[in-house]
């Protein structure tokens, strides 16, 4: 009986160690595997880019330009100041169109509508179009702050 108990304890401990060893070694391999497959990003830094000269954009006029990752941004002179809006729909990432005759942005993927200030008019988008900070320097140059890639 005592012999059996000794054997049982021994086999239990050996199973425990083997199990723990397997778990730790395969766990480490899995961790490295997941780390390898999960892309790592550097936090993108803000950067101001020159878009236009203020005198070339009278009230009501607009221009489009691309940010550093190639996405389209619209810069509008609303009369009360400059607004820079992303054209990427906040619903599922499609590109919105400006429809001048109806004065709204339209997303063709799931029928989202935004007004000239980027606010949601109708459809499924959960929030307004992303806005970018606009700066006008002493020489009337208009800069928009975008993120580095």
């Amino acid at each position, binding site marked *: 009986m005592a012999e059996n108990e000794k054997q049982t304890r021994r086999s239990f401990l050996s199973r425990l160690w083997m199990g723990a060893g397997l778990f730790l070694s395969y766990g480490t391999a899995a961790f490295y595997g997941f780390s390898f*497959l999960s*892309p790592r990003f550097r936090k993108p830094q803000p950067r101001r880019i020159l878009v236009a000269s203020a005198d070339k954009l009278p009230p009501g006029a607009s221009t489009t330009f691309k940010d550093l990752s190639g996405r389209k941004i619209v810069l509008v002179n609303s009369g009360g100041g400059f607004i820079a809006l992303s054209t990427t729909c906040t619903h599922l990432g*499609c*590109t919105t169109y400006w429809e001048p005759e109806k004065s709204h942005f339209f997303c063709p993927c799931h*029928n989202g509508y935004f007004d000239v200030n980027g606010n949601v008019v109708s459809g499924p988008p959960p929030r307004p179009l992303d806005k970018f900070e606009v700066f006008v320097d002493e020489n009337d140059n208009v800069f928009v702050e975008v993120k580095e890639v």
Partner: protein
Amino acid sequence: MPTTQAMRTWLKESFPLDLDVLKEMSSEPIPYHLKRWWFAVGGTPLYLFMIQAVTGIMLTFYYVPEPAEAYNSVARITNEVPFGWYLRSIHKWSANLMVAAVILHMLRVFFTAAYRKPREFNWMIGAGLLLTSCVFGFTGYSLIYEQISYWAAVVGTNIAEATPLIGGWLANFARGGPEVGANTLTRFFVFHIGVLPTVMVILLVLHVVQIRLHGVTRLRFDERGEPGVGLSISVSAPVTPMEFHEGAQGVSRRKQEEHPTFPFYPDHFYTELIIGLVLTFLLTILALVAPATMGEPANPLVTPEHIKPEWYFYATFRWLKLTSFTIGVVGTMIFVLMFIFWPFIDRWLVRRYPTREISFWVGVAGFAVYMIFTLWEAFV
């Protein structure tokens, strides 16, 4: 002659197969209702998967998974490579038919309640196979790198991003970065030709092993033992498995003898072979009448004005148009989870309302909504 004998002996020694055991394994008793072809649709996805594996490997010889070349390589396959258009069309149509076949098979299993105890796990494997087929379609479609498929990848990965807790990681993992681009194409290619086929084969093997372990479900109407006689599935009395009525232990020996069977090989094997031939013919007709074409190359700056995913995502696409972002995405996930775990929900419903076939009506309503949304998206 001695050489032939020596070869035979060598083969027998190298592959010590017991032919009697093999014969017994392939003579699995099949209930008579499987003589009706619409109950034999379960083998169709397997056949279509094999066609896709063969055509897919052939297409891989020419496809280049790189944004600047992907579209051009598909165009070369379609327009220049001998019989490239045919192989690509067969690959595309077999993928579409496979999703349709899995849906039809699951409908049959659902409305005959064949997912009930002890086959809950096999239903879940089946649901996994349907989801894998859909992801197969989604990744394959994106590999063409045309406008529609590029934007489908954008929308699809953004839906994944909305998954609670792990959404951000999941989307970045699938895309290989914050945007759909070169990494995404490589990853989708790896998923399409490596990861998903492996998952599919594992699930298929598990599915078939489960069918062999439990046997094919015996249905309540299976009483005459004659094919094509007296089958009517009435709306008020859905067909349910006999095992369910007999209890968890399955059908008794006496009952089994009352309900004659036929052997898998050669009877059912021939049925599958005929279905396979019909499918091959159908695929060729589809490839000739509606060959796979090319749209505009992907332009990450401009979303096309008319964008649609593959037909099996139409219902989801319409649902996303009708609802707010959260309800759209979370609702879809709840639907998928309910679909996977339906046998357990059904068990709870049966326990609570034993006299009513609530599952049947839920199935009718669910499928009707799916069809209405699909047709709505197709025609509007």
